[in-house]
């Protein structure tokens, strides 16, 4: 595996080698892709939407993620590794987006943008998630979502985000503690408003 200091980006060497070699075939045939898409799209879109706080951007990045995924030459591994690779592409695209559009980066996303998806929520904790997410750093949102919504292990999160495997545990612990505190705060505020 290769790791760069500036981005912390991991690259699966075998995938890179296949990309360099360049095949004319897509990663999957049409039917296999249709099935994979149906199973993975909601999760990917939810990840991008929650982390970016922008549903339209999430749709664009999800589409681009699938295109990049398909254009990468076919590689071995089942659906689990395909899904992980897809999330890695999406994470890199998010990072590229934030780098390009720094003034409109995630830290500047208004709180209401992250509240949109909770408008229909009936569960209090779920309604509190938007405002709590808005107060978290982008990286923390990413690892929290990958760990607690997608159920990825520390090693898998490391592979997807490019962060060091050893630091994931600490980052996740801190992010979770902060998120729990924010959620409780939001729940208390919501309770007082009623």
């Amino acid at each position, binding site marked *: 595996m290769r790791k760069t200091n500036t981005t912390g980006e991991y690259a699966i060497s075998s995938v890179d080698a296949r990309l360099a070699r*360049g095949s*004319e075939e*897509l990663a999957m045939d*049409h039917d296999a*892709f*249709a099935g994979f*898409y*149906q199973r993975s*799209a*909601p*999760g990917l*879109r*939810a990840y991008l*939407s*929650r982390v970016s706080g922008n549903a339209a951007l999430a*749709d664009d990045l*999800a*589409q681009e993620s*699938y*295109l990049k995924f*398909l*254009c990468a030459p076919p590689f071995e591994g089942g659906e689990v590794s395909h899904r992980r690779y897809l999330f890695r592409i999406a994470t890199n695209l998010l990072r590229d987006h934030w780098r390009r559009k720094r003034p409109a980066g995630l830290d500047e996303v208004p709180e209401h943008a992250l509240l949109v*998806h*909770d408008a*229909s*929520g009936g*569960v209090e*904790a*779920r309604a*509190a*998630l938007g405002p709590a997410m808005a107060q978290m750093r982008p990286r923390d949102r990413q690892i*929290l*979502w990958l760990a*607690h*919504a*997608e*159920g990825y292990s520390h090693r898998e999160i490391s592979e997807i985000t490019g962060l060091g495997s050893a630091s994931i*545990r*600490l980052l996740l*612990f801190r992010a*979770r*503690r902060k*998120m*729990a505190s924010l*959620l*409780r705060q939001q729940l208390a505020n919501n309770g007082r408003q009623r």
Partner: protein
Amino acid sequence: MLRTCSREKELTQALRDGHWPHGCGEELRAHVETCASCADLVLVTQTFQMARAESGSASMETSPSLLWWRAQLRRRNAVAERVSRPVTIAQSFAFTFVSVVAIWFAVSQYRSGLHWASWWSWLAKVPGMYLLSNGSANPDWNPVVLIPTLGALAVLSGLVVYLVSEKS
């Protein structure tokens, strides 16, 4: 400071499998009530899982067929670009070479007062070129020989670059 609980793994697995709280023992449930770290884990995981389940029902508008077709188109374009790259490199090289020769020729002509034969006499001084110089009766005719020669050289150079880049 990192203070994780020894029961975190067990609890994480229970939450992941959907066994929390009813599928877990009384002991673990009592532990969560007293352990701040585990309480955080339960609150955050359950909230995220609910949000994930809610998002799961919202599907993307783009059809997989359209994405598959677009990917195929992009892949073909990439392959076509890769195939034509050596030709582009060879063309650029040939163009640069011819441009440099043309500029050099124009400058040399300008300096010598637009005498076509002046540079030819200079060339005749180069060892090995006297045969070509003596072989032509009319010196003004010589550029007609030399320019196509340089052109052919440029084309051949381009071809060599093409073959080398194609091989690599």
